[in-house]
């Protein structure tokens, strides 16, 4: 298993650390040739318009879309989830449109409003997941083929799955809990 982490901007280094801790080969992806031999891709958190622009400039946009349509597993965290969705407010670059969700960017306010919360994630079983929300988005609309994996206490979806595509509004790579990464790897192996 070789997992690519989109390394155009954002917290790709943290994802790579978690993957290596799990004994998985992790490579930084900055240009189309970096995707060769990669079985799954993580799009990290960062600034979604910036990553969107660099996706276009790097030539990676059609490559990633093509690989997703061929069935490659992709997981987007925070900005990565925004980019995987179909639509997002105030996004100055088109998202990839791979997961049938409508996303609200920066849904909680400014940096001072960032927070952590325990979330029930039935798919992962056991104890709740400590979820880190940093100027985070939320999912406002979910299409028929999309499964909601976790919600905030008020019912707002913050983790979604459509086939082998995964989106989380929060940052599992910033905690010691590796269950979301392991779940993603299990999707990629199937």
């Amino acid at each position: 298993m070789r997992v690519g982490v989109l390394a155009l901007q954002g917290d790709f280094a943290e994802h790579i650390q978690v993957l290596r801790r799990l004994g998985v080969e992790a490579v930084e992806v900055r240009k189309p040739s970096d995707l060769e031999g990669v079985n799954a891709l993580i799009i990290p958190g960062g600034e979604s318009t910036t990553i969107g622009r660099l996706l276009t400039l790097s030539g990676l946009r059609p490559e990633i879309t093509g690989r997703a349509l061929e069935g490659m597993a992709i997981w987007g965290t925070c900005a990565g989830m925004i980019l995987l969705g179909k639509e997002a407010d105030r996004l100055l670059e088109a998202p990839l449109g791979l997961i049938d969700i409508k996303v609200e960017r920066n849904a909680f306010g400014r940096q001072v409003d960032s927070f952590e919360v325990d979330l029930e994630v039935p798919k992962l079983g056991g104890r709740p997941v400590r979820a880190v929300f940093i100027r985070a988005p939320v999912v406002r609309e979910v299409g028929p083929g999309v499964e909601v994996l976790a919600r905030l206490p008020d019912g707002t979806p913050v983790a979604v799955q459509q086939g082998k595509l995964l989106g989380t509004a929060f940052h599992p790579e910033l905690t010691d809990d590796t269950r979301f990464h392991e779940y993603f790897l299990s999707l990629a192996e199937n």
Partner: protein
Amino acid sequence: MMQLGADGVFVGSGIFKSENPAKRARAIVLAVTYYNDPKILAEISKDLGEPMRGIDVRQLAPQELLATRGV
């Protein structure tokens, strides 16, 4: 800076005193992403025009010196 291990680069407003700020800004952003790729670095560094010129402290009027402000 990226090759020395920095996570990112902060660009100050001095960039607007360069000849072509938009082109220079784009080059800086791409240079941060592709810091380990000499071919791309060479390509994006072409034809950027003049950078901001430094100002010699001896040419500043006393009221423009930071050392005298707020005194």
